């Protein structure tokens, strides 16, 4: 509850800071201070210090899972702002407003991680989506940005329509929006209304999480949006949608797991296949990362398929591993002029530190041992094994992880083993240190995952 209210207040504060503060550095520092306070307040709530006690009538529950995920999202955003806040200046003139929109998105994220009512789920998803439409189109003169924004907006609100229809049908069948009331449904044969409602809700959540076959908007939107905001969209927002996804299916529809499990397995296979195979053929690193985010979504779907303790722990670890690594790669990519693989030729000679950290992030995404990416993939596969059936799904996921090594290593190969002369890029000490901290965190979590997971039971 602390973070929910404070993030909304900070959003308004940032909006006015654009008028009151003249220097861009001041706005940036205010935003970084704001996100630090947000993180601190959320950690205080984890240890029992709640500033605002508001009776939500059971519509929200700030349990350990939600609070831990909020902390992960805030830490990722803090690191993201430290790395990339400077680059937002290039996007447009409304510098303070970008931060305001990011804080509003964080407010939506706290809603989606802690909802207990479908109403809050709907509000959370919308509070995340609407600022994202604006951020996608923030490069107003760029046709690609315009196009991505319009496409995202039309398809996003279309999927919102599907989600609302699903919620309405479930309401008709059950008579309540409360997830626990829906989960307590005991009838042996669910009515047609309920089945249609669950399917529509599943489709729209799959759409928001870019799960195949509802992924077609993802590469275009991620490619067209300004790269700074793609970084935010592909990591923190995507993780939040997955948290909402697993919460919804765990609490509300767990009683019918047998009936939708195979369906989820098919979606998972399609996502893994399409994401990985298409990423192999990309020429632009930005577009490759967009497809890689679809492929990683396929792995996160395994947690939804399994839906046990391993799956929930694994999903938290996965969100950290994926967000940290992808934020790090994007932070370097934003600085580059040339987004193709060839743009990275000879990068290691020119920027040895940046190349080394990027290599660690890529290794983590590919799932090489001693990185967080390996352990998070391991947790997902272990969770899927735990269900005791559909072993082919696990085998397929491992094969696809092997395919992903190809396109991640192409970047490493370009950086270290190809001759080239990339354009010089400017970095600040803060940028370099943050990258080193991120890389250290990725390795540390790969060796001691309990550093994170013990908080879940704290």
């Amino acid at each position, binding site marked *: 509850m602390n973070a929910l209210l404070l993030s909304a207040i900070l959003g308004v504060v940032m909006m006015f800071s654009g008028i009151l503060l003249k220097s861009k550095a001041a706005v940036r520092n205010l935003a970084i201070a704001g996100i630090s306070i947000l993180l601190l307040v959320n950690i205080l709530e984890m240890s029992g210090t709640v500033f605002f006690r508001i009776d939500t009538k059971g519509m929200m529950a700030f349990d350990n899972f939600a609070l831990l995920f909020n902390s992960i999202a805030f830490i990722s955003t803090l690191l993201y702002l430290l790395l990339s806040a400077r680059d937002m200046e290039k996007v447009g003139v409304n510098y303070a407003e970008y931060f305001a929109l990011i804080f509003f998105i964080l407010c939506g994220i706290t809603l989606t991680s802690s909802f207990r009512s479908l109403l809050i789920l709907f509000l959370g998803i*919308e509070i995340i989506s609407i600022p994202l439409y604006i951020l996608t189109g923030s490069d107003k003169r760029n046709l690609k940005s315009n196009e991505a924004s319009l496409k995202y907006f039309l398809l996003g609100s279309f999927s919102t329509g599907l989600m609302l229809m699903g919620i309405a049908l479930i309401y008709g069948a059950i008579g309540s929006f409360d997830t626990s009331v829906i989960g307590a449904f005991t009838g042996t044969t669910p009515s047609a209304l309920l089945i249609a409602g669950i399917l529509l809700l599943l489709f729209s959540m799959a759409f928001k999480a870019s799960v195949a076959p509802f992924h077609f908007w993802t590469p275009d939107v991620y490619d067209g949006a300004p790269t700074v905001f793609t970084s935010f969209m592909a990591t923190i927002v995507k993780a939040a949608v997955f948290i909402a996804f697993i919460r919804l299916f765990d609490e509300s529809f767990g009683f019918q797991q047998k009936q939708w499990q195979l369906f989820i397995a098919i979606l998972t296979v399609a996502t893994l296949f399409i994401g990985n195979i298409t990423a192999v053929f990309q020429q632009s690193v930005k577009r490759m990362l967009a497809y890689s985010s679809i492929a990683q979504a396929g792995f996160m779907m395994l947690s939804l398929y399994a839906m046990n303790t391993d799956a929930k722990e694994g999903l938290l670890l996965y969100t950290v591993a994926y967000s940290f690594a992808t934020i790090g790669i994007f932070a370097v990519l934003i600085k580059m002029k040339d987004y193709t693989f060839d743009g990275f030729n000879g990068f290691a000679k020119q920027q040895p530190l940046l190349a080394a950290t990027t290599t660690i992030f890529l290794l983590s995404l590919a799932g090489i041992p001693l990185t967080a990416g390996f352990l998070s993939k391991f947790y997902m596969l272990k969770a899927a094994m735990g269900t005791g059936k559909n072993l082919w799904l696990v085998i397929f996921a491992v094969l696809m992880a092997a395919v992903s090594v190809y396109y991640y290593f192409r970047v490493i190969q370009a950086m270290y083993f190809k001759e080239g002369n990339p354009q010089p890029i400017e970095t600040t000490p803060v940028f370099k240190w943050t990258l080193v901290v991120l890389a250290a965190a990725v390795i540390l979590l790969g060796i001691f995952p309990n550093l994170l997971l013990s908080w879940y039971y704290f």
Partner: protein
Amino acid sequence: MPINYYIFLALALFSIGIVGVLTRRNAIIIFMCIELMLNAVNLLLVAFSKMHYLKNAAADAMTTAGTDGQLFVFFIMVVAAAEVSVGLAIIVMMYRNIHSVDINFLNRLKH
């Protein structure tokens, strides 16, 4: 009236919206079709709300069952209004750059 009539009407409106989104090429008309989908949901929610109220009112005259459905409708209206303001701004932004609101334009990102 039986609840089935409301369900059929809402589903018909919803389907018209979906078909419109999938077949029309004008961004404004697609947007209107999305609004039609949302309003079909509003209608359905109100109908269900009344249904649940009547079901519970037989046993308990003071029941509040069904109010949450009507409350949801207000939230949908507010969110739809926010979406309209952002969506029209995006369409205007596109119109300023290419002087058209035809979404056949949306194919440059493929390459």
